[in-house]
C-alpha cells in the first residue's frame, strides 16, 4: 500500500486557488474529457465501475445513488454537502482551502452526468473564509466559461450557487440540508420520499460530499478501473483522514483504503505524543463508537471497521492517550449532541437533554450506580427510535465507551470527582 | 338462682359507682378522634392564599357527586390562589355527602380535609349546602360573608329553587312551574307535564 496522492497531489502549490494555476497543473481537464468523451449515461456507468463510495459518512456507492434519479423528471438539482460539522472532521475544509477548483470541477462533472442545470454548494456557516473563497472561484470559473450557459462550448449549461448555512450540525443530514437550502428550519424530512425522487423544491435531488465530488475529475481522467484498483475490494480509491487528538503531527492525510490504522498512526501522525501509550481511538468522527488499541491493526476499510463495531464515517481519527478520561470525552460529545439536536423528534430532543444532565453529574462524580443504569436505559430508548441518525449517534460513543471502560464509568459513581483526572494528574507530575 | 341474682346485683353495684361513658351532649362536648371525618375544611397557605386551585378532582372523585366547583381565572395582581386557576364557587351538599374522604385523598394541594365538626343539623335543607365561605378556614382581614348556594350547584336538588327568580339563570325546567297559568295543563297538547322536556319513543337514542 503505497502513498497515493490523488486529491492532495497539488496541495501546497503556490496560487492553486486561482484558475490559472489550477489549469496549469491539469485542472478542468477532467471536465473537458467528461463533456467530450462521455454521454451522461456512460459517465454514470464509469462512476459505478470505479466503485466510488460516498465520503460523507454513510459510504453509499455514488454511482448507484445517481442511478436512483427518475429518468424524465426535470429540473433536477445537485447539492454539494460542504456542511462539515462532525467533531474531529476537517478534510472538506482542507479540500476547499487548498484546491477549490477541484471541487468545482467535480461538481460540474456530476452535474453533467445527472443533467443538472443548477448545482448548489451548501457550506456551513462557520466556514466563512472558505465560502468567500468558493464564491470567488465560482466567479472566476464562470468568467472563464466553465460555469453558466454552454459550459466549455459543449452545449451543456450549469450554474453553481454557493449557499452558506447558519451553523447547525443537523444541516449535514441531506434532507435537513435541503430544507435549509429552501429557506426553512434545517430539520430532516420524512423519508420516503427520498431526495432522489422528491428533494429540493420537490424535484429529484442528489446530495454529494465535497470529497466524493473532488474524486470525480481523477476518475474521469484516469478511468474507473484504475480508481477501483486503488484501495480494497469494497472500498475503492484513497481517502482523506483527519487525524487529531494526542498525536505528534495532527492533520489531514490522504491514504489508500486498506492501509492498517497503525501505519496511519505511526508513519503519518508520528505516534502518540509525549511518548505515552494509546488508550482508545475514535474513527469516523464524534458519532462513531470507540475502538481500542487492539483494533489498530485493522485495515482502513469500511467493512473491516464496521465488523469491529464502529465505522469509518466521515474519515476522522481521534486518538486518545492513557491520561484521557473516557467519561469526560463522552460528556463532551453528549453535550455537543444536546446542543445540536434540532428538536424535531422527542427521543433526540429530550433524550440528549437527559443524557447530558446525567453525564455531567457522572463526570462530577455525583451519580449513583442505579442512575448509571438509567443512563444506559435512556441510550437504549433513543438508539434506533429517533427520526434521523443524530439522536441515534448521540448514544453510540457513550454506549461503546461504557461497554469498553465499564470500570472507569463505575469508578466515577459517587466518587465526588473524576478519578481518572486525579490519577493522571499524578502521572503527569511524576 | 340466688347466687346468680347476687352476682348480677354485685356487678350492677360495681358499675354504678363508675363514671359513665356517655356524655351530656350538647351541653358537654367530647374530643373527637384526630382522623375523624366530619364537615370539610378548605385550607389556606400561611400567607392567606387559598390552597384550592379549583381543579375539580374532588368533584370527580366524589362517589355521590355532592361537590360542585366553579373555577375561574386568577387576577395576577390580586390572586386568590397560587397559579392561574382558583375556585370561584365551591359547594358541598352535606346532606348527600357520605364522609368517605375521597375528596381529601384526590386533592393535589391538600386544600380540602375532613374536619372534626359533626354537628350538622338545620331546619332548612338549603342551609346544609355548604358554600366556599362556610368551608374556608377563617382568616383575619378576609371577608367571610356567605353567599347563597349557586343555582345549579351541589344543592340544586335540595334548595327547591324557585323558577324564574330574578337574577338567577334564565333557564328553568318546566316541571318547576309555579305559575300554573303559563304552564300547560296536564294533557294539554298531549304533553305530560312531569318531564322536563318532550322525549318521544323514537328519540330515545343515546345522546
Amino acid at each position, binding site marked *: 500500500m503505497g502513498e497515493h496522492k490523488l486529491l492532495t497531489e497539488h496541495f501546497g502549490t503556490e496560487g492553486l486557488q486561482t484558475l490559472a494555476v489550477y489549469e496549469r497543473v491539469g485542472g478542468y481537464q477532467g471536465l473537458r474529457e467528461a463533456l467530450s468523451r462521455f454521454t451522461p449515461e456512460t459517465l454514470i456507468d464509469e462512476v459505478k465501475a470505479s466503485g466510488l463510495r460516498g465520503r460523507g459518512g454513510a459510504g453509499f456507492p455514488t454511482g448507484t445513488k445517481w442511478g436512483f434519479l427518475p429518468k424524465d423528471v426535470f429540473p433536477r438539482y445537485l447539492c454539494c454537502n460542504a456542511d462539515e460539522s462532525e467533531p474531529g472532521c476537517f478534510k472538506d475544509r482542507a479540500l476547499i482551502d487548498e484546491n477549490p477548483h477541484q471541487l468545482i470541477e467535480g461538481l460540474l462533472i456530476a452535474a453533467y452526468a445527472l443533467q443538472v442545470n443548477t448545482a448548489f454548494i451548501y457550506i456551513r456557516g462557520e466556514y466563512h473564509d472558505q465560502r468567500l473563497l468558493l464564491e470567488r472561484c465560482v466567479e472566476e470559473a464562470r468568467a472563464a466559461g466553465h460555469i453558466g450557459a454552454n459550459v466549455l462550448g459543449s452545449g451543456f449549461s450549469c450554474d453553481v450557487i454557493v449557499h452558506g448555512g447558519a451553523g447547525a450540525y443537523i444541516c449535514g443530514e441531506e434532507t435537513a440540508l435541503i430544507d435549509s437550502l429552501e429557506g426553512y428550519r434545517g430539520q430532516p424530512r420524512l423519508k420516503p420520499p427520498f431526495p432522489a425522487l422528491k428533494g429540493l423544491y420537490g424535484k429529484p435531488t442528489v446530495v454529494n460530499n465535497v470529497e466524493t465530488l473532488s474524486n470525480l475529475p481523477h476518475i474521469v481522467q484516469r478511468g474507473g478501473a484504475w480508481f477501483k484498483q486503488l484501495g480494497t475490494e469494497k472500498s475503492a480509491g484513497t481517502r482523506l483522514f483527519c487525524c487529531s487528538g494526542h498525536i505528534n503531527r495532527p492533520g489531514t492525510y490522504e491514504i489508500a483504503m486498506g492501509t492498517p490504522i497503525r501505519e496511519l498512526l505511526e508513519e503519518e501522525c508520528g505516534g502518540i505524543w509525549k511518548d505515552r501509550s494509546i488508550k482508545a481511538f475514535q474513527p469516523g468522527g464524534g458519532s462513531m463508537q470507540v475502538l481500542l488499541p487492539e483494533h489498530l491493526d485493522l485495515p482502513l476499510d469500511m467493512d473491516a471497521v464496521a465488523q469491529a463495531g464502529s465505522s469509518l464515517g466521515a474519515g476522522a481519527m481521534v486518538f486518545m492517550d492513557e491520561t484521557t478520561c473516557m467519561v469526560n470525552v463522552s460528556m463532551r460529545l453528549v453535550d455537543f449532541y444536546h446542543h445540536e439536536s434540532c428538536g424535531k423528534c422527542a427521543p433526540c430532543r429530550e433524550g440528549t437533554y437527559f443524557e447530558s444532565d446525567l453525564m455531567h453529574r457522572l463526570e462530577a462524580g455525583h451519580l449513583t450506580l442505579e442512575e448509571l443504569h438509567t443512563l444506559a436505559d435512556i441510550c437504549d*430508548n433513543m438508539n434506533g427510535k429517533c427520526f434521523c441518525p443524530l439522536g441515534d449517534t448521540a448514544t453510540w460513543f457513550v454506549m461503546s465507551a461504557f461497554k469498553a471502560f465499564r470500570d472507569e464509568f463505575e469508578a466515577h459513581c459517587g466518587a465526588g470527582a473524576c478519578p481518572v483526572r486525579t490519577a493522571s494528574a499524578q502521572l503527569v507530575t511524576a | 338462682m340466688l347466687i346468680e341474682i347476687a352476682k348480677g346485683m354485685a356487678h350492677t353495684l360495681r358499675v354504678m359507682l363508675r363514671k359513665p361513658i356517655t356524655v351530656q351532649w350538647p351541653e358537654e362536648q367530647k374530643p373527637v378522634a384526630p382522623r375523624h371525618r366530619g364537615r370539610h375544611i378548605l385550607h389556606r397557605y400561611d400567607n392567606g392564599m387559598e390552597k384550592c386551585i379549583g381543579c375539580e378532582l374532588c368533584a370527580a372523585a366524589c362517589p355521590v357527586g355532592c361537590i360542585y366547583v366553579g373555577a375561574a381565572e386568577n387576577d395576577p395582581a390580586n390572586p386568590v390562589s397560587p397559579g392561574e386557576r382558583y375556585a370561584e364557587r365551591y359547594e358541598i351538599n352535606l346532606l348527600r355527602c357520605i364522609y368517605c374522604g375521597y375528596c381529601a385523598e384526590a386533592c393535589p394541594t391538600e386544600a380540602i380535609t375532613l374536619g372534626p365538626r359533626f354537628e350538622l343539623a338545620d331546619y332548612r335543607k338549603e342551609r346544609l349546602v355548604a358554600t366556599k365561605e362556610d368551608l374556608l378556614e377563617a382568616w383575619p382581614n378576609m371577608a367571610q360573608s356567605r353567599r347563597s348556594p349557586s343555582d345549579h350547584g351541589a344543592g340544586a336538588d335540595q334548595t327547591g329553587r324557585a323558577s324564574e327568580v330574578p337574577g338567577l339563570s334564565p333557564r328553568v325546567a318546566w316541571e318547576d312551574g309555579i305559575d300554573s297559568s303559563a304552564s300547560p295543563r296536564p294533557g294539554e297538547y298531549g304533553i305530560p307535564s312531569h318531564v322536563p322536556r318532550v322525549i318521544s319513543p323514537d328519540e330515545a337514542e343515546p345522546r
Partner: protein
Amino acid sequence: MAADTTPPAAPEDGLVGITIDGRTARVAKGTLVTDASAILGIHIPVYCAHPKMDPVAVCRMCLVHVEKMPKLQPACATPVSEGMVVSTERADVAKTREGVLEFLLLNHPLDCPVCDRGGECDLQDFAFRYGPQASRFPITEKVHFNKAVPLSDRIELDQERCILCWRCTRYYDEITGEKELVLQERGVHTLVNTFEGKPLTSAFQGNLPEICPVGALTNRKYRFKARPWDLQRTKGVCPTCSYGCNINIDSRDFEIKRFASRDNPLVDDMWLCDRGRDSGPSWNNVERIRRPVLRDATGSREVSVSEAVAAAARSLREVRERHGPSSIAVLGSAENTNEEIWLLQRLARTALETPHLDHQLEAFPDIGPEEHALGIAEIEQCAAVIVLGDEPEREAPVLTLRLFKAQTKRGVAIRRVVAQATRSLVGELPAEGLIGLIADETNREHATALAGELSRSHQVRRMTVTRGVNGRGAKDLGMLPNSGPGYTAVDQAGKAGRHILEASAAGLITGLVVMGGSVWSASVTPLLERVAAALEVLVVIDTRPGPLSRAATVLIPGHAIFEKGGTVTNMEGRVQRVRPALPPATQTPSETRILSALAAELGAAGWPGDHLLINRELVTAVPAYARAGNGGRALFEAAVRA
C-alpha cells in the same frame, strides 16, 4: 395464525392485506398502519399524527414492530404493504412507548390540576395507559418557558406544556395556509410562537385547542369554565350559517360552555370557524321572550298558551271573514326547523288559505333546485371552482378551508372573481371536468347568467350559500310565495317578504303571522313600525324580543334551536338532526305544538305536534327528503339532471 398471516395469493381487489397483532384485514392501498389498526380495533397511541394532515412522524409515540424491518417503524407514516405483519404488543414496542413518554414528560410541567385540558389530554391518557408510572428525572432540572401567553383574544399558549407535535404549525400550513404559528429555537429549547410575535388574526383559531393533544393551546373563552366530566354533550348543528357544520354542544349547569367540532368529512371536515364556535356561549346571555302575552287597545296581559292560541285563531278568523283570506300573510324565517316550516306553510296554504307566505324579505323569482346542485365535498372533484365575490366565504367561512384543501391537495383550480364577473373575466377553464360555481343569494342573478354562459362549453354545477341555518330547508319545503314544497308550481303566486310588509303598512294586509322574525326584522325596523301601526292582528311566535314582538297582538314564546328537536337542511341540501341540548327557557310548548294547536283552533284538527311525526309527514310529501334520510343530501330531480 401463521396460516392467516401469509395468504397464498393476494386477491386482485386493489386492496392490501395486513396483520396487526394476529388480526388481519384488507385495506385500501396507501392506508397508513395507524388507520389500519383503527379498523382492526387496535389502539396505537399518536401525538403528531392527525387524520386531516400529512404525517410527520416526529413524536415517535406510534413506533411499532414491522416484520422484516430492522428498526421499529412509525405507524403513522408507514403505508400498508401486502403481507405486512405488525406487532404492537412486543416488549420492545412497550418499552419504546414508556421511553418516549418519559421523554415527553421530562420537561412537561406538573400542571394537570390547573390545566384546562386535564381530563381530555392525550398525554395524561397515554401516560396512564402506556407510561412508565415513575420519573427518573430530577424535577428541579426542567427547562422552563413562558406560561399563559395570549396569542389573541381567543387563544392562550403555554409553551411549557407543548410537546412539539407540530399539529398547530401544520394546521396553519396545510389546512388554512395562513402560517401564523412557527417553531423557534432548536433542540430542547424549541418552542412554538406566532410569526414575529404578532397576534393571531385567523378566522379559524378555535380549532387550535382542539387539535392540540395537550393543554398548550387553550381556548380563552372556555378557560376554566368546566372540566370535561362536567359537560353534557349533545350532537348538534352549528346555528350560525347555512354551511351546517356538525358540532357537539357541551353544556354545564344548563348553559352552553362551548361548541366542539364533530367530524363530518362531507361537510365541515372537522373544522369550525371562530364565528360559529364563539356563537355558542353567547346564546346564554340572549334576552328571551318567556310568557305568552295578549295586547289590545287597553293594554297587555300575560296569559296561558292555550288562551293565546285561542285568541290568535279567533282574531285571524275575524280578519279572514272581514277582508278575505288574501288579507292574511305568513312569515317564517331561515332559523326555523324543517318541521316548523312544514307546519307553517301548511297553515298558510290550507288553514288560512293565503298565497302570501315567505321566510325572508327578498323575492326570489324563478327559484329552482339547480341553484344548489353542487355539494360541499364535490368541490374536491371539480376541475375548477369559480367563486363570485367574497360574500360566499364571508357568509360561510368554513368554505374557505374546503376550497384551500381542494386547491392544495386535489389540484382544483380556484378562481375568485368579482360578483359581477362575466365569462371573459373568468378566463381560461379546464376543458374537461366539472366546473363549480359558488355564489351567495345576493349574487343569484349573476350566477344564473354566468352559469348559462358556461354551460354552453362546460359541465357546470352551482352552489348557492343560503342565509340562516335552515334557509335551504325553507326553500325546499315551499316557504316561498312562488314555489310549493319540493319546488312544485303554485296556483297563485303570492307576495314576497318585503312586499308583504309593505302591503301591511299600506293596509292591504291586515293579519300577519310571524314565526322567528327577529332574525330579519332588525334590518327593516322603520318599516316594521309602520306595519305594526297598520295591522289589525299580529301573531308573533319568537324566541327573542324585537320590534315585532313588542307590537304583537298575540305573542307566544318559542324555543331556541338548542332547546328542541327537528331537522335542518344545509346549503347543499344535507338534512341533519338537531337535538335539545338544554331545557327550554320558557314553560310553553315548542313551536310545532303551538302551530298544530293553532291549526286545530282554525278548524284543521289532527295535525301532528311532535317533530318526529311531522317529519314522517313531510318526507312522505317531499320524496327528496325521504331519500336523504338523516344526514344525506336532498337532491331534487332538476338538480340531478343538471
